[in-house]
């Protein structure tokens, strides 16, 4: 089974960040890591490829930097990577991102496309569905479990109350939640082999996609400080006050 996985390199969430004063885009350091969210996708892809004699291709859009995040995923065991790095795509919205990813995936042979549910930095959470629509394939989203016999894929989709079981035949896109599988640690041998694995760096033009970000950020404001909540002192009636407050907030 040929699996394509969408992975994003992001600045280390633990490190400081700054915004470009002109474009308000995040200043991307050379040093980037594999988005934690996407490790689950990579692990899922590797397990499926191991069970069904397949291969795993990483597809990513963003500034390549020193490729640390991509190498991390290759070190886990993926076979190769396609990276769309184009200055013109800076600040892309999710639809442009999806167009680019779909075009990059369409150039590959694939039976299954795997993505995370939402990225750690952008977290719009709509890229996977858009990619599926653009590729003209079904999308199975929010998977907490994925099973496949090689020709069809069924998942458990996380819902507020529990889960739904949904399935589709390949080719299909699946977006996986954190915890769908336990991502492996790269092995040292894998880390050393990752250097030799092919990373194909292309531009939007190479893919025949128009490089327009689709959105512009006009201004950025700091999030307002949260106001202190109301304190309820329990004198026997607190539960009633809490219920009333929740009703007022229209959450129950």
């Amino acid at each position: 089974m040929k699996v394509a996985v969408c992975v994003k390199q992001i600045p280390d969430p633990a490190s400081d960040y700054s915004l470009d004063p002109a474009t308000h885009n995040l200043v991307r350091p050379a040093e980037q890591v594999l988005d934690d969210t996407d490790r689950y996708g990579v692990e899922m892809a590797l397990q499926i490829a191991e069970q069904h004699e397949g291969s795993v291709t990483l597809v990513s859009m963003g500034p390549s930097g020193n490729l640390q995040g991509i190498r991390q995923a290759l070190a886990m065991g993926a076979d190769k990577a396609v990276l769309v790095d184009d200055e013109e795509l800076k600040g892309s919205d999710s639809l442009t991102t999806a167009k680019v990813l779909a075009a990059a995936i369409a150039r590959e042979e694939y039976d299954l496309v795997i993505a995370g549910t939402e990225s750690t930095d952008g977290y719009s959470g709509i890229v996977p569905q858009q990619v599926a629509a653009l590729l003209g394939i079904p999308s199975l989203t929010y998977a907490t479990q994925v099973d496949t016999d090689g020709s069809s894929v069924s998942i458990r989709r996380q819902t507020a109350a529990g889960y739904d079981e949904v399935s589709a035949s390949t080719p299909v896109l699946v977006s996986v939640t954190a915890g769908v599988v336990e991502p492996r640690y790269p092995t040292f041998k894998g880390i050393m082999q990752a250097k030799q694995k092919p990373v194909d760096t292309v531009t939007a033009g190479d893919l025949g996609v128009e490089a327009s970000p689709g959105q512009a950020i006009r201004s950025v404001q700091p999030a307002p400080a949260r106001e202190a909540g109301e304190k309820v002192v329990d004198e026997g009636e607190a539960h009633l006050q809490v219920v009333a407050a929740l009703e007022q907030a229209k959450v129950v």
Partner: protein
Amino acid sequence: MSHADTHKLPLDPHDFLAIDSLLDDQEKLIRSTVREWVDKEIQPHVADWFEAGEIPTAELGRQMGAMGLMGMHLEGYGCAGTSAVEYGLAAMELEAADSGIRSFMSVQGSLAMFPIWKYGSEEQKQQWLPGMAAGELIGCFGLTEPDSGSDAANMRTTARQEPSGDWVLNGTKMWITNGNVADVAVVWARADDGTIRGFVVPTDTPGFTANKITKKLSLRASVTSELVLEDVRLPADAVLPGVASMRGPLSCLSEARFGILFGAMGAARHCYETALDYAKERHAFGKPIAGFQLTQQRLVEMLVRVNKGTLLALHLGRLKDDGRLAPAQVSFGKMDNVREAMWVAREARSMLGGNGITLEYPVIRHMVNLETVYTYEGTNEIHQLILGQAITGETAFS
């Protein structure tokens, strides 16, 4: 005209001298992989293991083997074949958690696997190394005895070769890391002809017993044992063919000491970082204790020692990867980095006040662990004598 320096401000208190810029991407990826594993699998449990005096060696062995930590700097036979610097960086991350965890890996890779890899026959290598690299077989190294430590050459354990070719070992080994959990022991003994030989001893051989040493107040997250060898009969091919002198065990020690000179700085770093965080949070006399001159002086001394020691380790690592590292240079690193790490650990311990004496914080654990690290793999004094001899040409050992 001078070039304007471009530097990032503020400087990073966790990498003040930008030592990271001396590492390549692969080195960083190996380091971050080990660090992540340590943060997830070791840090949350190690204080409990230390307190209980028990560690889950079988499970850790498998996990460490799967990653490639066991015998990582050796080539072939299932070993990862990394550089020396990468081995050092891994030791540093493991020892940032606990010297006992690093010892588990050092003994396996540098003391048990290394002599088989370096001096063993092809059959010995095939038999033992793949399982040991996978962490499924655990090894130990028996050199020290109850009556000989620094002067290991005075060992009393004997190896008698019978006309059939069989070897028969008798003696007692003391302070043997992993002894009780080992599947195989590399035991050094004096042969009939007076030479020192190494033997690959499966620990289920009749006559072999391991007794766990208890009541330790240091390196509690590590198994330490006494090995008793009573007429342990081994086939002729159990001897390591490649060496017949003290050079055998000493070369193993040099490998392990190399890991320690990195590892000690991992422990020191963790103590410094814990103290720095604590000093910024803890208030006394109306302000954070980090705001007092005396506290700053101590934090700065810790910072300087951690950074100097790390630079030293990296420099020696580069020499080793170049094939130019002399044993006396390893002694320099082992001696100085361990004593500096002890200094940092003690200062950190005291800066945490009462909290510094509990296992809720890592500082006293590192502090007492480093007492072992100061003693094993050549005591501080032994390394001073090695260095003294190297620069004067005079030996002062006896």
